[in-house]
């Protein structure tokens, strides 16, 4: 390996800082009260650094020679560095012991959570205990946190006390944990994750601009509009799936039977279920389920809206990196805007002079499957731009397959990657099992190399050895039950997709990224610069995929639909295709509630629900201005670069 690829660090620095994290408030974390570090210098001597405001231009340990930074949850320190040393880049190379813990103990954490999900990441104290490393008293830590969080005008004595705690407890614990974990650390790849952990904090700092007025009104009027949404859903379905505002599962199941809609069986309980995640693959086949799925998700989300929005009108939520077993981020679904149903993401709106754009990795799972299986037909289909359409066209002998035909072959290709059998495919597509089997046979005949590769991956997983991804993320089979087997079919695509996401974020640190969700990246820039920024993000995605997979994945972006400029609001692609009817319905209900609140209600006018396509009450324009919602939107991001 060339010398450029490795860095010989003559020193190791273990930094920590004390500040008000402003947890759950959507604010940029507070200015650091103190930043401390333990340094092991070239001669193996220990140097203790105690800093407080005013901070020097650069940290005293940054003396020109390469040094390794090692911390626990380095995002916090990245924030303190952005405050205290705004002109310095993030330290590099850096190892984040939190990230490394998540990598090393992934399988163990999944097992502890029962196999389906994953335990939450550890605190520093928990990680130290796991490694038998002496650490601080949690009560003392809590007292120090309280001291840091409770005020801004600390006395000199209090700052000194916080410095001592920061240095002798946090830094020292981190140092001890580092040496305990050292034999298990992948020193070549850990700095990639360390850099990612700091960059993802930069994304959080930037935040997403939220259109505050409609958001606050949605929260304020939720108790009024929720019963109406439930009534509307009952009316659409022709059954009281909500009775006295309580969802009645049995009524929904009965309704599905009445409409001859096959009912999924929950693999965990082996019982019939109408759970949202089981219904989702069926919504394109059964319009009734689509209504149910979209509306119920909105009802559930509105009931529990908790976006973390700062006083500057920007949403900032912890993205919970490495929070899933595949290594993807796992932010809260009600605190993070991109965790909301896609029908409600239009709360995001650029401020004056600004634009927001979304770049998607096109058909990411299929692309990665093509790259690793080496299936020449799948690679060719992927490169055509729409693998499902091409497959449908060939299979059916038509030039231009319909959307529905494409959907069938899409479900089948993805189904193969997700381990979906003929029974489930038949249920999802509303076709006979024989027909589903025939289409699966067609898929296997078209992509025999893919099928053989998936089988080989399953064979390895079945040996109970870790399946390690391209930059080191790994997972091993725990109990071998069918759902876990399916996990491993899909795991190489999901987990390598997560590795790609991390590399893209790492390389796009200089660009104004404000969010990432699964396989899409969201940037915010001035209207003049947005196209250039998008072009750079797309180049980074393509290059990163070539670097990791030896195969270029698409970075999809259509200026006419994937970019919004002030005063328009962000619209998810699916909601746009749906004519924004859910958002407009939602806004109309808010308006109705507001008017009633101030005494202008007109009982003759009811907000039209999304299925009433030309209902006059529906808002015609996607902008809230049409319904009189005007107000400050999120300010342009504070510069954190």
């Amino acid at each position: 390996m060339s010398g450029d690829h490795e860095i010989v660090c003559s020193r190791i620095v273990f930094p920590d800082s004390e500040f008000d994290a402003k947890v759950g408030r959507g604010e940029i974390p507070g200015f650091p009260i103190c930043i401390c570090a333990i340094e092991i210098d070239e001669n193996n001597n220990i140097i203790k650094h105690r800093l407080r405001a005013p901070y020097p231009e650069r940290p005293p340990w940054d003396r020109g020679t390469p040094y390794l930074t090692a911390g626990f949850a380095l995002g916090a320190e990245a924030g303190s560095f952005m405050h205290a040393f705004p002109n310095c880049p993030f330290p590099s190379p850096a190892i984040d012991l939190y990230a490394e813990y998540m990598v090393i103990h992934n399988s163990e954490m999944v097992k502890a959570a029962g196999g389906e999900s994953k335990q939450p990441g550890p605190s520093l104290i928990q990680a130290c205990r796991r490694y038998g490393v002496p650490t601080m008293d949690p009560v003392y830590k809590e007292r120090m946190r309280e001291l840091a969080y409770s005020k801004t005008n600390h006395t000199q004595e209090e700052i000194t006390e916080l410095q001592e705690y920061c240095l002798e407890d946090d830094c020292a614990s981190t140092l001890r944990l580092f040496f305990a974990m050292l034999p298990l650390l992948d020193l070549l790849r850990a700095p990639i994750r360390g850099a990612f952990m700091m960059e993802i904090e930069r994304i959080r700092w930037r935040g997403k601009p939220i259109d505050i007025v409609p958001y606050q009104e949605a929260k304020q009027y939720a108790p009024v509009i929720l019963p109406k949404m439930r009534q509307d859903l009952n009316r659409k379905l022709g059954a009281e799936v909500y009775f006295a505002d309580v969802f009645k599962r049995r009524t929904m199941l009965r309704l599905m039977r009445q409409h001859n809609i096959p009912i999924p069986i929950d693999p965990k309980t082996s019982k019939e279920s109408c759970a949202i995640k089981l219904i989702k693959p069926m919504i394109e086949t059964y319009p009734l389920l689509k209504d149910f799925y979209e509306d119920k998700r909105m009802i559930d989300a509105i009931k529990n809206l908790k976006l973390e929005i700062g006083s500057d009108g920007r949403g900032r939520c912890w993205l919970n990196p490495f929070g899933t077993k595949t290594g993807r981020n796992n932010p809260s679904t009600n605190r993070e805007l991109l965790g909301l149903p896609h029908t409600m993401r239009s709360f995001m709106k650029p401020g004056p002079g600004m634009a927001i754009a979304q770049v998607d990795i096109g058909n990411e799972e299929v692309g990665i499957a093509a790259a690793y299986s080496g299936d020449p037909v799948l690679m060719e289909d992927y490169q055509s731009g729409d693998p499902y359409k091409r497959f449908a066209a060939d299979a059916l002998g038509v030039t231009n397959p319909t959307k529905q035909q494409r959907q069938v072959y899409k479900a089948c290709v993805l189904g193969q990657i997700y381990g979906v059998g003929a029974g489930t495919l038949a249920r999802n597509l509303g076709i006979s099992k024989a027909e589903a089997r025939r289409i699966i046979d067609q898929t296997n005949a078209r992509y025999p190399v893919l099928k053989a590769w998936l089988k080989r991956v399953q064979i390895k997983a079945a040996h109970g050895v870790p399946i390690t991804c391209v930059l080191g993320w790994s997972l091993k089979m725990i109990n071998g039950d069918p759902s876990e087997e399916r996990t491993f079919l899909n795991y190489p695509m999901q987990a390598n997709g997560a590795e790609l996401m991390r590399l893209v974020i790492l390389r796009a640190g200089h660009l104004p990224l404000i969010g990432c969700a699964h396989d899409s990246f969201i940037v915010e820039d001035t209207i003049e610069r947005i196209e250039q920024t998008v072009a750079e993000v797309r180049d980074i995605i393509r290059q990163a995929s070539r670097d990791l997979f030896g195969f270029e994945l698409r970075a999809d972006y259509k200026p006419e639909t994937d970019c919004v400029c002030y005063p328009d609001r962000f619209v998810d692609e699916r909601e746009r295709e749906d004519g924004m009817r859910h958002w407009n319905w939602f806004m109309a209900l808010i308006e109705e509630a507001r008017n009633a609140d101030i005494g202008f209600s007109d009982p003759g006018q009811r907000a039209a629900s999304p299925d009433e396509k030309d209902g006059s009450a529906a808002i015609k324009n996607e902008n809230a201005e049409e319904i009189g919602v005007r107000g400050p939107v999120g300010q342009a991001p504070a510069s954190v670069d």
Partner: protein
Amino acid sequence: MTKPTSTEKVVPITVGNPASATAFVIDQSHMEDFATEAEENSSVVEVRRPPRGMYFTVLPEEKGKPMQNRGYFFQLEIPGRDPYLVTPEMAKKHSEEDVIRPILLVRYVTMSGEEALWSIKLTPPDSKANSWNTSALNIVEIAASGKWVRIVSKQKNGAYRHTISKKSLTEEMPKFSERSFLELVDIAYGDRKVLDDAHEVWTILAEGSTE
């Protein structure tokens, strides 16, 4: 202050340069580490016509080496029951039974690696040829000449049609199992092989049921 783990010098320490992520890519061919150790064998062998949606191929029979990839048998069919395989001696002895007829069993494998047997009914000497069976035999010969073929559809004239894949056998190697043809036949028919007069099938034919 606790010193590091020991008095050993802990620096310098060499770590990866995050700007060189490409250099640290782990080759994903390791995912297939165990694949060669685990050839998958089905404990059942289906006797069915190759699926219409999938290409399949068969191996040619070498001269002087019968029963390597195909073989002539007699099949006894009773409605509602899986077919029985009857030895030539037994077939001759019970030639009065019109439910016994000659068949050609052919081992085939689909492009996705599913191995099975195709039972093609043969025309008895005193009967008229059936175009379904004739076309099936023709397709077997085409496949045996080193082609991936697929049964496309039935025609009004009562014969199978077929297409030939552009992929050659060298591009897409057929994955026949290590099992011999006769092993496959044994697995496929199990205790439905009729070797002598003691087999229950004769009672079923005579009395309708053994129970």
